[in-house]
């Protein structure tokens, strides 16, 4: 028996993939973490994403759709569509958008958002990003926004997107990235402490390499920065001051302040005026410093990559 058939034949927790890339126990555990997180925070996350990311969705659509072969007749996938922020923007520009997500609570939110927008050319299904329910070359465009950092094997997901896209088909991706020069490990440790369903934030170079390998050819790429309030960011996750998740995430974020090691550009904000990171706690004992910093609001920056690439 070859190693391959042995793996497929007897391994427990591994099953049914005919594509040569099995779904493992680790994959299933990650999907459950994602489902737990986006079910528990469905309301707060939908409210945030539909509001704060609406303009980004328009921006990505403007980058991806013009120049697409037969855009008016195109069928697009919004992979891990969440509450439908990007689904809406693309539905206004193509023939059909299929929103896929693993979390039923997100699909409910997305369906409502699309109905509110009066869009009739959207359909939804539950699926796993690595095992898509589409044939080879079935689609023209695949959108995936703020989701790659939840994927355990982004290379595999990109190969799967490549498979379902036809010739000339495009991927349009948006995700947070670790800025160049930042400590990727610390950056991801902060993210994972806040959100157990966070897998890994990539760098821009890592995204480029993964796209090349899938293979896709990059057409356009941009980065942008979003300034955020730490407490708001925590609240979206249901983490309030006083909870252990809040305290530990905040401690790590503060640890990254000297030298901005994690690349979040965090800084204390007090009474509308901003205090320079290096000046924080000057002249205070460590305990006084901790007590005073705990009351101060933190602002930080998330760096986002927008990229459109064509199937090769």
């Amino acid at each position, binding site marked *: 028996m070859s190693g391959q058939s042995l793996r497929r034949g007897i391994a427990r927790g591994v099953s049914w993939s005919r594509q040569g890339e099995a779904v493992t126990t680790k994959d299933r555990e990650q999907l459950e973490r994602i489902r737990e997180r986006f079910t528990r925070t469905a309301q707060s996350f939908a409210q945030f994403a539909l509001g704060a990311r609406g303009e980004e969705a328009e921006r990505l659509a403007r980058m991806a759709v013009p120049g697409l072969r037969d855009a008016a007749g195109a*069928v697009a996938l919004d992979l891990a569509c969440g509450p439908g922020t990007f689904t809406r923007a693309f539905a206004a520009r193509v023939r059909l958008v299929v929103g896929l997500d693993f979390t039923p609570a997100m*699909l409910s939110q997305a369906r409502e958002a699309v109905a509110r927008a009066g869009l009739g050319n959207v359909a939804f299904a539950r*699926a796993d990003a690595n095992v898509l329910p589409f044939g080879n070359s079935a689609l023209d465009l695949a959108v995936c926004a703020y989701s790659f950092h939840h994927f355990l094997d982004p290379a595999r997901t990109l190969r799967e997107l490549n498979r379902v896209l036809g010739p000339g088909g495009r991927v349009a991706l948006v995700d947070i990235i670790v800025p160049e020069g930042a400590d990727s490990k610390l950056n991801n440790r902060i993210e994972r402490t806040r959100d157990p369903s966070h897998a890994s934030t990539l760098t821009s170079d890592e995204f480029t390499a993964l796209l090349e390998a899938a293979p896709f050819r990059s057409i356009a790429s941009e980065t942008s920065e979003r300034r955020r309030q730490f407490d708001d960011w925590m609240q979206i996750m249901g983490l309030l001051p006083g909870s252990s998740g809040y305290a530990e995430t905040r401690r790590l974020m503060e640890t990254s302040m000297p030298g901005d090691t994690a690349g979040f550009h965090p800084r204390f904000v007090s009474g509308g005026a901003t205090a320079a990171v290096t000046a924080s706690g000057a002249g205070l004992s460590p305990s006084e410093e901790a007590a005073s910093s705990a009351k101060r609001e933190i602002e930080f920056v998330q760096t986002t990559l927008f990229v459109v690439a064509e199937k090769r």
Partner: protein
Amino acid sequence: MAVSKELLEILVCPVCKTPVRLTPDSKGLKCSTCRRIYPIKDDIPVMLPDEASVEAE
């Protein structure tokens, strides 16, 4: 609200990639090759092999 016809035209079995068909009771999508039936819950097809049932011969 039923499952959109346009979606049904492009959905395939995620395992064997055979186009799926609506079951007679409209409660699922069936793959004629591997005989998996994917449930439709709240009008949304659940295209997950782990949630599919397999029809007996």
